[in-house]
Structure formats: structure tokens, C-alpha cells
């Protein structure tokens, strides 16, 4: 904790300004997600020196480099596995993973379910823009049915993943979702996830304007942002788990939160008992 809690939030305090201008396209939602993460970090008074941000590959993977913290740009799909080693070795660090829908649900899907199951104190932001944007706009596990991408030229026929239901079923002790349109709400979900002791999975519904929105006639940035409003089902609507998955017609806010023992603490407790036993013997 430091004294920044009292100071008003200025995103520049948390950015590597020498890295500007950033690489994100006009209208991309990832910048909003980045700002909301840093806003939450600020409000919780997390020390930048003790903040570790682990990213995968893709547009989401490039976001970490702008953060003035300990940042790790790892291999495709593996940031949760890197973060697992880092958090176990250095429980004193606040470990945040930034990943994308392809990084987290396709190539990294196995690591996601096991990270949820283990329940280490890691906060995972999955920036869902429904497409492999960095590689030019191929279909991803969250691309909606019938959407056009460079590898679904006749419309996507594959069903999509509901990442939050997956994380919930796999045992994540905190599951949240928010749209980039609702920046303060997104900040609050991230803040709650960071404050939660255990594995927090947060799906951030982002937008890819340039190669997904344009290709599917979804309008430009303002139209795509506005459609988040009309398509997002408020939590008051109740549980949509029984309904078929539709992108952007999902519950938002904190979807699940439960008390489960944090794995790192459990391991350290057992290790301490072993050490005591060994000491008593010698």
C-alpha cells in the first residue's frame, strides 16, 4: 500500500509514457480496459513495484508493455502458467494476467481451467474482442455465429464459448464480466477481483473496430460501443445459464464469488508443518 489512494487518479502515473504513441487502433476497447485496470490499481493503492502484469500473445498481449510495472510478455496462451510460477515463488507480488479470447480460450484453454481449479491469488483479465485481431482477423472461440472473419468467409458456423460459465464450472472463486462501455463499472469489477483472495476471472467485452466491426458492418467505434448497451443483459434479468449463448447478451457484474482456500496459502501452511516436523526430528 502507498499514499496514492488519497491522490486523484491520473492514468499517466501508471503508464510508460516513453512507449507512446500506443499501437492500438482507433476505437479499440483494449485501451479502456487498460485504463480501468490502472484505475482499480490506483484505488486499491497497489504499489507499482509490487505489481506484476503477465500477458500472452495477440493485441491483448501487447497491452502490458504500456504499464509502468513489472511486465512480462510471454508465449501464446501461456500467461496463466507463467503467472502460476511467479505467484508461487513470489506471493508478495500482486499478479495480474492480461489475455485475449484466443490466447485464453483456444491455445490456453487447458491452463485456464487448471488456474481456476487451483485458485491461486491471480487476477485474470480476458479481453474479448471476438476475433484474432493481431494476425489479421481470423475466427476465435468467441466469434458469434454467422460472423465473417478471414477464416470464416462464408460465416462462422462454430458455436461460441461462454468463458464465465467455463471459469465458474472449473472452480474460479471470483467470476466477473463487464463491457468497456461502462468504464466505472468495469473498474469496480476489476477492483473487486483484485481485492478477492483467490483466482479471479474477469471477462472484458472489448471491441475490434478495424478488422471485425468493419468486416461485419457493425459500424464504427461509437456504434459498436452503443451496441454493447443494447445487447448487454443487466444482472436483474436473472440467470441466463439456461439459455443458448449469445455474444453480448450476457450477465454483467460479479457473476460468482465464493470462499475457497487460496492455493498458495494452503501450500505454505502444509510446508510450514513439514518444516516443523523435520525440526522436531533433528
Amino acid at each position: 500500500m502507498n499514499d496514492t489512494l488519497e491522490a486523484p487518479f491520473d492514468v499517466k502515473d501508471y503508464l510508460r509514457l516513453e512507449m507512446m504513441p500506443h499501437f492500438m487502433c482507433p476505437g479499440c476497447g483494449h485501451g479502456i480496459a487498460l485504463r480501468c485496470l490502472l484505475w482499480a490499481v490506483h484505488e486499491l493503492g497497489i504499489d507499482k513495484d509490487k505489481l506484476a502484469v503477465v500477458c500472452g500473445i495477440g493485441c491483448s498481449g501487447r497491452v502490458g508493455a504500456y504499464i509502468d510495472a513489472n511486465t512480462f510478455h510471454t508465449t501464446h496462451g501461456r500467461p496463466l502458467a507463467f503467472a502460476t510460477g511467479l505467484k508461487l515463488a513470489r506471493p508478495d507480488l500482486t499478479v495480474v494476467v492480461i489475455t485475449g479470447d484466443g490466447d485464453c480460450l483456444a491455445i490456453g484453454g487447458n491452463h485456464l481451467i487448471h488456474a481456476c481449479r487451483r485458485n491461486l491469488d491471480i487476477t485474470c483479465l480476458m479481453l474479448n474482442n471476438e476475433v484474432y485481431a493481431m494476425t489479421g482477423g481470423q475466427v476465435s472461440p468467441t466469434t458469434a455465429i454467422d460472423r465473417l472473419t478471414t477464416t470464416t468467409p462464408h460465416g462462422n458456423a462454430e458455436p461460441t464459448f461462454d468463458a464465465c460459465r467455463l471459469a465458474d464450472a472449473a472452480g474460479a472463486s471470483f467470476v466477473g464480466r463487464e463491457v468497456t462501455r461502462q468504464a466505472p463499472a468495469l473498474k469496480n469489477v476489476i477492483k473487486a477481483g483484485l481485492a478477492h483472495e483467490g483466482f479471479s476471472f474477469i471477462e472484458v467485452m472489448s471491441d475490434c473496430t478495424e478488422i471485425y466491426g468493419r468486416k461485419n458492418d457493425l459500424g464504427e467505434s461509437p456504434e459498436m460501443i452503443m451496441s454493447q448497451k443494447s445487447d448487454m443483459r443487466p444482472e436483474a434479468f436473472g440467470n441466463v445459464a439456461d439459455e443458448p449463448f449469445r455474444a453480448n447478451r450476457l450477465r454483467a457484474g460479479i457473476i460468482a464469488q465464493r470462499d475457497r482456500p487460496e492455493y498458495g496459502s494452503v501450500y505454505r501452511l502444509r510446508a510450514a508443518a513439514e518444516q516443523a516436523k523435520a525440526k522436531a526430528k533433528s
Partner: protein
Amino acid sequence: MTTPSLASLHGNRACAAGAIAAGCRFFAGYPITPSSEIAEQMSRELPRAEGVFIQMEDEISSLAAVIGASLGGVKAMTATSGPGFSLMQENLGYAAMTEVPCVIINVMRGGPSTGMPTRPSQSDIMQTRWGTHGDHPVIVVAPASVQEIYDETIRAFNLAEEFRTPVIVLYDEVIAHLLESVVLPQRDTVPTLTRKWASGEETTFLPYAVTEDGVPVMARPGDGHRVHVTGLTHTPDGFPTQRPDLAAKATQRLLDKIEFNRDRIERNETFDLEDADVVIVAIGIVARAARRAVQELRSAGLRVGLFRPVTLWPFPEEALREAAARAKCLLVPEMNAGQLALEVERIVGPDRVARLNRIDGEPIAPGDIVRRIREIAA
């Protein structure tokens, strides 16, 4: 008590003991024959040594977790065999590129694919050198006895720390499960090295700056330097670049770091070489069989000697050239279809090099080598 103790261990147990003695405090791995005893031993020992063991969901994540722990400042390792080692290639390249110290044990079994899980092999010799994509440096050590597994595992950690690079300890299933006497020194007498940590002015620190020995100083999270680590080609400040001049420099420095320090990395053993007409070049358990063959052939009046690389990569080139200078023939016996022979041929030329290969899952016996050399001599 300052005297060393004598223990009866098999190779995999000696490996785990060496790792703990070297200061390893993190292990992530995935079960695979014939290496699993290392993970089992580490799962018992590490919590007692205030370290952490974790069994990951696969070998990809195992090496990822190891690198994550090492980035956090803890000496870390994994252990596997061929199929798992194949899965680790992606993050092996990442560790080489980002210069993260780590140790990977590869206990070789018969391949390709699932192959013969419980049978010995030496068919990963080239994979350890060229398995991951891109021009990258690598250090591989190849012990030939249980004692040497212990000693070389310690040296592997020291090399990884000194040169900020992944180091692979490569041995076959035979010595992995061979029971031998091992001298275990007192913990505080084991020579251990730790990477250079960054200190001083935070704002001017360059995480990949060129230093005298070519090895950059590492920043520990929490110490105030807040650096960026990426597998993308990067400049000394740690950030990506695609500028041709800077990209070339970055990759060249990675390679030079090992190339210019060969004398501190290379190690080899010779036996009866002085007047040898035939020089056997072998590693691991095959070198043990070769030693026996040398003795047998010597007593029959044939001048035979042995050259054994202990550091397999970078290959002790100069030492081999010297050893081969007056030899009429070099024989390369190995448990694969011919990998070590390729490197020997590259160094001394193909004319004098003969091969002896076994790919049936059986170790090469002294008698196999004796017969082959009698053939050559005839």
C-alpha cells in the same frame, strides 16, 4: 560434521539431491517415464527446504511456471523425457530469448513419439541443440554416472545463473535408474552461483545492456526497476524492435554470450588417448561401455582411447580436434541412428569417422564396441 557423506542413489535421486544442494527452490513438472522420480523426490524435499513444488497440467505449462518462478528470483527447474521435452521447446526458446536462468532435465527414452518409454536411448542429442526455433544459444551437459549426475546438476544451475540461459541436463534411462555410490559433500561446501541482480539508479537501468562478459544484469520484481520482459526481439531497454541493425545486434549478443565463454562452459574427459590409433567418442552410459572396451582392447595390444564430452553443447570442438590429431579412426557409438557422429564429422571431417548405432532400446555393450573396433582394425 564437515566430512562428506556416502550414499547409494540412483541417477534420478542424485539429480534431485544435486538440485537442492545447488539452491533450487522451485520445481514444476508433469509425470513422464523415465524421469518421474525426480519430481517425486522434489515434491518431498522442496516444502522442507522452504521451496515450492507444483505438478502442472502439461509440460508446456511446467516450463512456463519454471520461467515465471525464475523471473521472480528463485532458482527453478523441471524434469521430463522426450515427448515432454518436445512440448517444452516453445518456452525453452522463450527462456533463451529473455535470458531467464532455468534447468531442464531430459532423461532420454526410445522415440520417436511415445516410442519405448522404459527403454534407454540417446536420440535427443540434436533436439537439445536445435529443438526450438530460431537462432538461439544453449548449454547441454551429459553426465555418465550417478555421481556425475549429482555434480553436473549443480554445475547446470551455476551455468544457468552465470550465463542467464536455460541449461539442459541430458542423460539416458540406464543411468537414471542405475544404483551407485555417490559422495555427497556438506551443503555449505557446494559451490553455488547466483545471477547478478540489478541495484542502483532505477531510471537509468537497461535490463539487456551489454556488459563485459556479455551477460546482462537481472532486475528482480519488487526492487524498483519495473522492467519489461518479452520474447519479441528487443533492444537493451527490453522493448521490442524490428530495426535490422538492432535486431541483428540483439540476436548476435545472445549467441556470443555462450561462444565467447566456451572456456568456462566446456568440459570433457579423456581416457588412454596419448597414443591412440582409434578414438572412441561417446557420451552417457555408452561412454562407460567404451571405457571397458578400451581396457579390453588395450590388453589385446590395440591402441584405443576415449574422448567423452561432458558439456555436449557447445561441443568441445578444440579439445576433440586435439584428441583426434593423430588418430587413424574415430568411432562414434551411440543409442540412435547417428547424431553425435554428425558433429564429430563436422569437426574432424567425415573420412576418419566410423559409426556404431543401436536403435533397439538396448544399451550398447562393451562387446559391441570391441567387435566393431576389431572389424575396423582388420
